[in-house]
């Protein structure tokens, strides 16, 4: 396995608040990693730094062996696609017009979309299963459909790494399962995935690594079994173990294993 992205003691402060403190981790090519942590812990910030959108303080982010600070934005955009939590459009763009924007890092000053670009757009829409929506107006889609279109836009960048910020938020359980299936499929296509996930039920069985980010503490990583330990979650989320189904389940599972 090769390392695709590496964070090496990365720090980031927002005003006086330190959101990332010596954050270090590696993403292996082909892996599927969940980023968990309480609200305000800095998950979105970490994804934006990984996507090259936000400038970090000290430390290093290395993409395919090269320091990210030295890479051109277009070069980063051809390797990493960041799918944000929200997308609101001011005008009535169709799904196809939205997905077309994914080709931005490949287009020159005067050159429009070529045959290859069109093929990449069609393939991205097929992969995310939004080809049937291509003429629909993005702003009129349901939450689940919008999520798929945003992923299609990311896929049109032909990235090696897909960063997703809370992709299952506001989706019903049926759409959540569809989305998780899509992530499995994309992983099968060779795309590395890092997704900020709020619902801890979705982590085990779907992700092979977990990054846990909690306020004021150094980021830690491990397998889902290691990172979903009740004691760790209780401290990170500041939640009593008997008050949330996930912690109750994890505690019962752990006692079952011990017995």
């Amino acid at each position, binding site marked *: 396995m090769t390392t695709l992205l590496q964070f090496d003691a990365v720090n980031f402060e927002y005003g006086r608040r330190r959101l990332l403190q010596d954050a270090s981790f590696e993403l292996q090519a082909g892996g599927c990693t969940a980023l968990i942590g309480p609200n305000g812990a800095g998950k979105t910030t970490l994804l*934006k730094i990984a*996507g*090259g*959108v936000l*400038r970090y303080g000290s430390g290093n982010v290395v993409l395919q062996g090269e320091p990210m600070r030295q890479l*051109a*934005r*277009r*070069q*980063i*955009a*051809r390797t990493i*696609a*960041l799918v*944000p939590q929200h*997308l*609101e*459009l*001011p*005008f*009535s*763009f*169709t799904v196809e*017009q*939205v997905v*077309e*924007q*994914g080709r*931005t*890092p490949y*287009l020159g*000053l*005067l050159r*429009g979309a070529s045959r290859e670009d069109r093929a990449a757009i069609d393939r991205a829409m097929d992969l995310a299963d939004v080809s049937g929506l291509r003429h629909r107006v993005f*702003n009129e889609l349901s939450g689940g459909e919008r999520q798929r279109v945003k992923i299609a836009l990311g896929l049109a*960048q032909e990235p090696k790494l897909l960063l997703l910020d809370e992709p299952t938020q506001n989706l019903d359980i049926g759409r959540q399962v569809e989305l998780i299936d899509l992530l499995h499929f994309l992983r099968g296509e060779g795309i590395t995935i890092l997704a900020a996930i709020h619902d801890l039920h979705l982590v085990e069985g779907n992700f092979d690594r977990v990054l846990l980010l909690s306020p004021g503490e150094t980021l830690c990583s491990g397998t889902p079994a290691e990172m979903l330990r009740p004691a760790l979650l209780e401290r990170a989320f500041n939640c009593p173990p008997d008050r949330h189904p996930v912690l109750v389940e994890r505690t019962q599972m752990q006692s079952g294993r011990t017995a």
Partner: protein
Amino acid sequence: MAENVTRWLALMLLLAIVLAAVTVFSMGMGAVHIAPAAILRALFHHDALSTTDRVILLEVRLPRVLASGLVGAALAVAGLMFQGLFRNPMADPYVIGSSGGAIFGAAVGIFFFSQVSLLGFSATAMLAFAGSVVAMALVYWLAQSGEQTSVVTLLLAGFAVSAMLTNSTYFFELLDSSGGTSSRILISWLYGSVGTPPWTQLAISAAVISVAMIASFPLMRRLNTLALGDEYALQLGLRVEYTRVGIILIGSLLTAVAVALGGLISFAGLVVPHVARLLLGPDHVRLLPVTALGGAIFLMLADTLARSVIAPSEIPVGILMAFLGGPFFLYLLRKTKRGYAV
């Protein structure tokens, strides 16, 4: 896809035909009515009309009709660009301070440097451009925070700068108690009136507007990307700040040329891109030529109406546009409040 391209080309062809027809129609309208057939004959055979009619047509009406077309095209395209830049269908050169900057610069030019010109450009025109750019740069600087620029702050700053500069221009007029030529020109600009410009000014304006529109073409695709938001555009590898500077410079140039020709004309940059978007959707690349043609037609008709309703007197087209565009602005505001994006 191919169907959309055909529709786009057909619409452009239709608008070009309508533009030609409106040009002829507008030339015939006014205190002295001249039939369209007579106008066409006069354009191709110089001796087809009486000397008086020929002078009215070719030396008074034609420059005015062409000037109103240029003003309309420039304002509509500037409006399209600013709306795309600010991700807001309510942005317009008048609303965001660009027109206010241009008129302030033009006022400085006409009061203090009226005899100065450089490379065929009068100091008034150059100062109108400088005023527009400085106003936009000021608004941009006020709204900038770190690497990003907040759109809401930008619009508010635009409103404040616009109010300051437009009212300062009124102050120039008060200072000139003699009521001389400069004052009269300034008043006609503040009302928004196209008038009959000299052919040299018309030719230079046409050249500048054409160059600005050609230069803006590569930026149109980038405006589509900017519609996703600054961070999204940045993530897609777009050089957001360069794109913004390019849009501001070209939009300000178009505004300045329009103001130098016709003064403060509000809402033309609001109505035309909106209607074009309803017909074609929001793709800025396709909207550019359609908006330019539509803007030219729209202002030619508005100016013809302005000089025909109470002929031989006329209403300044800026006042007419405020009557037409004001309610449209409020309608858009209401619609935007309901969360409906055009």
